[in-house]
């Protein structure tokens, strides 16, 4: 075990304090959503952690078998509700592949801008909760201050603050008008300042470094073996980003870096996400310069009755989100399966838990950046 993890262990007298199974959640101030973790404790040390999910299961995949293709879109929002656009995007891509629809360029750029804004918003929530779990409540409030500016932008463009139903099969719902561009400008400026502030306030804080370094180490081979994706994978040193390796939409025309960690611990994943935020700002600024005039909605067949199957994946803030659609010639999808990265990452909790202290449990949950809507669908 690394040196900084435990130097002065506290041992209880033997009687009565041996292996104890304790419930953490489903209602708990620090599990982000309704997650139940059955923890086996030996005094202060974790011996095992067993996550129990399903508290937010809403039969999304089954329900979509009864909906028409456009009607599924609002449901996809509600999986990863803090970064709804990327989930809509996965579904839109799958449906577009199935129906053979082309998306006009302007719509693609708008999708990129909205998607990257969502990445920023999602990482802001993650940052705030991560800091709050460690006891620093203030960065959480600061993250929400930035999110308010982001919400203003989303509200100006789409009409609502969360759960947008903005992407359509073949394009987007509406264009970004002048008010929208101004709101975007305000948001970007606020984010520039905020990232510097978070850096000073939290990233460089020695207490945070001591609490996050060495926690939840994941080597590159382990990460690949566990099926990790997104920042969890990149924090372990594997340079894989779907936007660069399998570019969808117009990402092949945009220039951005992919931050990669080295030791795969919580601190590295933290840095990866913070750097991703900077890169998102860069992508948005390029997209604003490059966006061409044009249509925002491509040609879609009037009756959507596709046959065949399609699989589409996107680089969501939490990892790789994918949608598998099977059509059988009727207006409803025959099968819709949703691949959730947080669901895959949850298996890392039992892998990491043994040997850590109770106080690290929340750090581990936070470093996965879990969102239960996506896990349970």
């Amino acid at each position, binding site marked *: 075990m690394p040196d*900084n993890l*435990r*130097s*002065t*262990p*506290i041992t*209880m007298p033997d009687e*009565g*304090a041996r292996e104890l199974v*304790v419930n*953490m959640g489903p209602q708990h*101030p*620090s599990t982000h959503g309704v997650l139940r973790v059955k*923890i086996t*404790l030996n*005094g*202060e040390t974790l011996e095992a952690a067993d996550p129990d999910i399903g508290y937010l299961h809403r039969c999304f995949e089954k329900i979509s078998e009864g909906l028409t293709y456009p009607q599924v879109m609002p449901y996809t929002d509600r999986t990863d509700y803090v970064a709804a656009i990327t989930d809509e995007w996965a579904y839109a891509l799958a449906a577009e592949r199935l129906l053979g629809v082309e998306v006009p360029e302007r719509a693609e750029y708008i999708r990129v801008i909205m998607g990257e804004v969502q990445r920023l918003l999602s990482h802001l929530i993650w940052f705030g909760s991560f*800091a709050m*779990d*460690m*006891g*620093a*409540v*203030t960065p959480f*409030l*600061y993250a929400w*201050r930035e999110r308010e500016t982001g919400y203003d932008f989303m509200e100006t463009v789409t009409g609502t603050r969360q759960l947008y139903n903005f992407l359509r099969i073949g394009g987007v719902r509406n264009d970004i008008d002048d008010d929208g561009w101004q709101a975007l400008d305000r948001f970007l400026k606020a984010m520039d300042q905020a990232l510097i502030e978070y850096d000073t*306030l*939290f990233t460089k*804080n020695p*207490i*945070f470094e*001591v*609490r996050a370094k060495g926690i939840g180490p994941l080597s590159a081979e382990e990460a690949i073996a566990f099926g990790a994706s997104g920042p969890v994978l990149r924090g372990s040193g594997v340079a894989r980003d779907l936007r660069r390796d399998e570019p969808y939409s117009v990402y092949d025309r945009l220039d951005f870096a992919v931050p990669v960690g080295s030791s795969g611990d919580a601190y590295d994943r933290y840095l990866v996400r913070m750097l991703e935020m900077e890169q998102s700002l860069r992508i948005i600024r390029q997209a604003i310069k490059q966006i061409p005039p044009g249509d925002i909605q491509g040609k879609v067949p009037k009756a959507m009755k596709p046959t065949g199957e399609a699989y589409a994946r996107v680089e969501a803030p939490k990892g790789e989100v994918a949608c598998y659609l099977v059509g059988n010639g009727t207006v409803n999808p025959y099968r819709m399966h949703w691949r959730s990265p947080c669901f895959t990452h949850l298996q890392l909790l039992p892998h990491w838990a043994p040997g850590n*202290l*109770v*106080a*690290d*449990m*929340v750090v581990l949950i936070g470093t996965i950046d879990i969102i239960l809507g996506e896990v349970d669908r």
Partner: protein
Amino acid sequence: MFGIPEPWWSVVRAVVWALFIIIFLAVNAIVAVWLERKVSGKIQRRIGPQRVGRPIGWAQTIADVFKLLVKEDVRAEATDKWVFLLAPAIPFAAITLMFLVVPWGKNLIPLNLNIGLLFVVAVTSFEVLGLFMAGWGSNNKWALLGAMRTAAAMISYELPMVLAILAVGMTAGSLNMNDVVNAQSRVPFILIQPVAFLIYYIASLAEANRTPFDFTEAESELVAGANIEYSGLRWAFFFLAEYGSLVGTSAIAATLFLGGWRGPILPGPVWFLIKTYLLVYVAMWIRWTLPRVRIDQLLDFGWKFLLPLALADIAVTGLVLALL
């Protein structure tokens, strides 16, 4: 004095001071909690309590106290009755005693002990006893675990605190609190003994269980701390003791390092309150900025860093005093 014969005057004086300290602590709890919520609000770009006692929410804590008063006083059957019931009183008693040797003004000190500093040290160390009694008397494994962790942390930070106080005593040449204040007539000790001040302040944050050392109160920890079995007014006593400890150690720090009641123009007690609450404000500011330290890291920091630093400080102080 005032025409009252001697033995009665001492009694009257003692009673007045005792009442004053207890009322001051009660009012302080109310003010400190309100101040904490307002300061945290300001740091977090929001407003804090507003409605109860518009427009600044001054009555919020009073309302909270009323709520606590009407709560049911629950006590589990299997608890150790007298240990459980007496536990909240101990930290409160310790804080009250701490104020006995704190000078409020030129001749305004409740008890002018020649060993004032030693008295302070002795009294702060039995706060731990109250918390441990709470953990033990609750007959609850988690309370006991929490109490043991708290006790471990508080005891670990006693030593650096004591050594820092000792450094001040050495610099002032006396253990009498009045002498310490008078010795700061030209320059406050914070400038002569900055390291001792930092050590004392950090240790006092650990004693009061405040972030970054508040693992016992952290909701993200499974173990809720020594006082989980307490409800209503009994729990309020622990709460009061925490804020009392904060203001008590700030008052001591103000006396030892910032010159106590000394200051131009304004009367002594006003300066004393200003300095004390300045340190209380800094403690709150620190609380809302820094994340929490883990228990083992906390003990590491106390034993492996603060204690050697405090010893080094004593050594240097002694050397300098011997040479001068």
